[in-house]
């Protein structure tokens, strides 16, 4: 879990400054990211964790923070 959080943070770091980012901060509400990021995030999760993000998974609540994404990856069993 902790390792996945680090990976997510490293991915975020390619787009914005993550120094003060808490694991629960909603990055979409905070205005750090846009739809282009959302697209790349899904692609990154699928590629790096060898999983598929289904239409049913496409809920912002699964992807809006470090914790949400790490939990999602864990639920997917990867």
């Amino acid at each position: 879990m902790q390792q996945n959080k680090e990976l997510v943070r490293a991915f975020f770091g390619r787009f914005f400054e993550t120094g003060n980012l808490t694991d629960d901060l909603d990055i979409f509400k905070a205005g750090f990211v846009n739809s282009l990021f959302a697209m790349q995030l899904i692609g990154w999760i699928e590629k790096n964790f060898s999983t598929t993000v289904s239409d049913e998974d496409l809920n912002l609540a699964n992807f809006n923070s470090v914790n949400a994404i790490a939990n999602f990856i864990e639920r997917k069993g990867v």
Partner: protein
Amino acid sequence: MNIIGVIGAGVMGRGLAQDLAQHGHQVLLNDISEEILADAKSSIAQNLRAQKMLGQNPKITESTDTIIARITTSTELDFMGDAHFVVENVTEKWNIKKHIYPKLDTICHKDVVFAANTSAISITKVGSLTSRPDQVLGIHFMNPVPMKHTVELIKGYHTSEKSLDVARTFLGSFGKRSVLVNDAPGFVSNRVLMLTINEAAWLVQDGVASATDVDDVFVSCFGHTMGPLATGDLIGLDTILYSVEVLYEAFNDSKYRPCPLLKKMVDAGLHGCKNGEGFFKY
């Protein structure tokens, strides 16, 4: 009018194909290679998913697979014979565009209207490549197409009112409204925008400010959603360069001279968001 031909599966063609398909149109998507078409379908799927995830307008209620299934692809133009309306979105180079229209003219039904989705090329000149210049017009879609609901509709010298009405009906079928402008290089939007992006590149080249600071002035001081250099990256720096070159050629006015830094970046393969790096990294 529910079978729409989309020629060119680059940034604009993809966005348009997606937008049409998610509004229930059948789309005939053409480009020069199977690899480009496969990549287009996969990026459209990714985009649809991102849009679904963000719950953005227009809301997507159907499955990604259902929407994608409405897009038929081919590297040949022949299937455009089934199209009720055609939008051409190929690279902003006259030498590429000029070969397409005479072919379309023979393939498509005589009533079909052709729209050139261009940011700078003369609609009147495009019309002259066909036997139906009254049925050729310009539609300048904005990027990303599914998110931008207003377009420039461009009337060429011979474009008829009837063709403009057909275009308005077509646009209305997927939620777009238009602003009608006359044919002139760059129309309204890009005559100003391309020059702004080009000038912003000069500022970086001359060391007046960094790319981040140039954009910060526009975002923070003017309240723009995006600065000119990020906008350039989003559109594609190659497209920006071609458009500036078209303006330079059309007006023969040195104020449109392309910035050498922009040229160098395009030569170096820094084309912006679409390949990961332009003035900013993605």
